[in-house]
């Protein structure tokens, strides 16, 4: 009776569903089909070197996860349990790496670590820890924040010593958070591309790096597809295991769970500040190395950023300024595209009511696929007329949209679901038709989340490296590719240029995040 007109609902659903089907589901299905069509399974698996790639991918992911949990638990506890001067700054510092492009973190660790540590597993793992500590601080810290201090106090009055308080009270309660943090870190490390490519070199390649190498460097697309499938299976298994474990261990904190910061003594504060400094170190090193050349301070890395010639007649093959222009342009496109796609999808999910979860789940699918796999699927699918689009420049921003959409939908759906149903009812009783009520209530409510979605997409696009590596064509090199190329060149100048470009990317990303935050808080005050 008060539902939206049928045709409007159909339009809302068809648009995102069609895009998802054409550019995500069909390519991935095609990828799987390719593997089973050819006899790639046996020929790829028999090739030497593959076993070591899989082995390295898994063990570095396990080690990265364990190290991240161990290291991240300390600031997670200190920063959420104690109050001291500078707490918020340190908290922000530990969260920053998560929002940085992986390629910037890779470059930062190259600049920080001595040459002897380059191309080692330890460099890769260190970067993974750095990137993912925010997950532990955020997810586990949120539990610490709501764990009443009186609960541990109660255990102590009942005779439990500190160790037993941790073992019997704290651990069971934070275990689900630990588990979900561990799962996320493990998945991120397993599908790591940017940091692994820059820091692991050719000897220590993760599956993701190997897929790209085969697809672009060796022209072995079938083999790459096979590895992508393997990767998909890995991800599926990990997600399945962790969701079963999590369902079993869920605990509800009853009663009032208010944060209780205990004013602290000096050692705690010093310990936390130390973590803050530790987290700032790679970024400081990055900036420093961009102005160091052959042991001297110089700005040549910056002033010659636009020079594409090493010496007269010898071209570098990299155009940093051009890459910057391309990246910014693609970021704008990806932001607009993602905001539109995620906005329509969100409205459709809400309008579908009972069946909304189907589209919701569909739009989240790209999350379970690595960016490289998404790019590879598009590469091998759009290569026959009339859809021979693989060489089209817009495939790249489209890939970025697909990578960013799940995050954008998540953030918008929260806002859409928070709309009180009575608001629509109120509009209806005041004489608004279902369509007008929808326009004024639902569509308008998405204005603020739309900005956030666009911002998420812009930062994703700026730092996107995986899908980009597969889909990039000559002439549309983005900044992450340029950084990778510069840092891979011999000579001090290209390196300094690479570091300088990484600093630029870092600043652009940070600016985007800050701008989105400001825009959001502005609209918030207006909308109330």
């Amino acid at each position, binding site marked *: 009776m008060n539902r939206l007109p049928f045709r409007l609902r159909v339009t809302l659903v068809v648009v995102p569903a069609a895009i998802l089907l054409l550019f995500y589901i069909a390519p991935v299905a095609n990828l799987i089909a390719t593997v089973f069509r050819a006899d790639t399974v046996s020929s790829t698996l028999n090739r030497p070197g593959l076993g070591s790639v899989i082995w390295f991918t898994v063990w570095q992911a396990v080690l990265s996860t364990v190290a991240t949990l161990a290291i991240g638990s300390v600031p997670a506890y200190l920063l959420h349990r104690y109050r001291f001067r500078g707490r918020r700054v340190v908290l922000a510092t530990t969260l920053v790496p998560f929002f940085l492009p992986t390629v910037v973190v890779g470059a930062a660790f190259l600049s920080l670590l001595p040459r002897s540590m380059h191309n080692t597993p330890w460099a890769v793992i260190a970067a993974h820890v750095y990137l993912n500590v925010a997950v532990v601080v955020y997810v586990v810290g949120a539990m610490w924040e709501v764990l009443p201090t009186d609960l541990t106090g*109660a255990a102590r009055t009942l005779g439990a010593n500190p160790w037993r308080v941790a073992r019997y009270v704290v651990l069971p309660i934070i275990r689900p958070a630990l588990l979900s943090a561990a799962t996320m870190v493990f998945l991120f490390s397993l599908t790591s591309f940017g940091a692994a490519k820059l820091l692991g070199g050719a000897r220590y390649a993760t599956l993701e790096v190997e897929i790209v190498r085969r697809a672009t460097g060796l022209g072995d697309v079938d083999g790459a597809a096979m590895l992508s499938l393997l990767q998909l299976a890995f991800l599926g298994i990990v997600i399945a295991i962790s969701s079963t474990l999590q369902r079993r261990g869920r605990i509800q904190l009853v009663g009032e769970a208010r944060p209780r910061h205990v004013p602290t003594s000096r050692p705690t504060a010093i310990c936390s500040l130390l973590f803050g400094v530790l987290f700032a170190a790679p970024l400081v090193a990055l900036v420093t190395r961009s102005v160091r050349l052959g042991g001297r301070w110089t700005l040549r890395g910056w002033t010659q950023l636009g020079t594409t010639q090493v010496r007269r007649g010898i071209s570098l093959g990299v155009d940093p300024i051009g890459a910057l222009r391309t990246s910014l342009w693609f970021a704008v496109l990806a932001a607009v595209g993602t905001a539109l796609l995620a906005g329509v999808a969100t409205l459709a999910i809400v309008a579908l009511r009972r069946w909304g979860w189907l589209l919701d789940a569909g739009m989240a699918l790209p999350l379970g696929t690595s960016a490289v796999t998404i790019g590879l699927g598009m590469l091998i699918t759009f290569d026959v007329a009339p859809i021979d689009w693989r060489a089209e420049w817009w495939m790249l921003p489209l890939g970025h949209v697909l990578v960013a959409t799940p995050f954008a939908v998540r953030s918008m759906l929260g806002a859409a679901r928070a709309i009180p149903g009575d608001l629509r009812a109120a509009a209806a009783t005041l004489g608004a038709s279902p369509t007008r009520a929808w326009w004024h209530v639902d569509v308008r409510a998405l204005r603020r989340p739309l900005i956030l979605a666009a911002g998420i997409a812009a930062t994703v696009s700026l730092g996107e490296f995986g899908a980009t590596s597969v889909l990039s064509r000559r002439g549309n090199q983005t900044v992450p590719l340029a950084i990778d190329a510069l840092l891979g060149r011999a000579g001090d100048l290209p390196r300094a240029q690479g570091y300088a470009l990484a600093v630029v990317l870092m600043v652009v990303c940070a600016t985007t995040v800050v701008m989105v935050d400001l825009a959001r808080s502005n609209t918030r005050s207006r909308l109330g």
Partner: protein
Amino acid sequence: MLRVDDVTVRFGPRTVLDSFDLTVADGDVVALLGPSGSGKSTLLRVIAGLIRPDRGRVWLDDRDVTDLPTHRRNVGMVFQDEQLFPNLNVAENIAFGPRMHGWTKAETAKRVDELLELVGLAGMGCRATSRLSGGEAKRIALARSLAPRPAVLLLDEPLTGLDRDLHDRLAIDVGALLRADGTTALLVTHDHDEAATIASRHVNLVGQ
């Protein structure tokens, strides 16, 4: 016997307790009355060892426990918002204290049944704490704190947040229970009727 001797607690610039003295004889139930912010809860926490006083000593049965960690003091405490362990069921919550004190399984099980009986909730051992009503949770919290036979029981506004009817009935129950057990107890409340029902005498605390 519980003796608090010249205890001072400061939170930053604010003095919450100023040279406070108190003695509670064995088997006595004393109510601490006073407005919020007068340091009642803080005093309980000092006695339990959850807060270290800036000055003064706490004596339990002629032993100076001021520097003893909480888990070795043998004081029971009922918290304002119960603080039942959400990961344990009712029986496991009550058994927690005896378990920490190294009781045998048989002793513990017997004690749990005894206490469930005592607080009038026999047979509810397997219930999840999230499925208890407000009054039931208060009773379980009381049972849990009594389980390891503490030398002194501290009750921090144990009946706040209940509706009047249930509150009055529970106050009578708790008073009878403490007297029957001969428990030495210190009750913090802002309710004069509650103090009169449960305690044998009361001490007024004035806000600083």
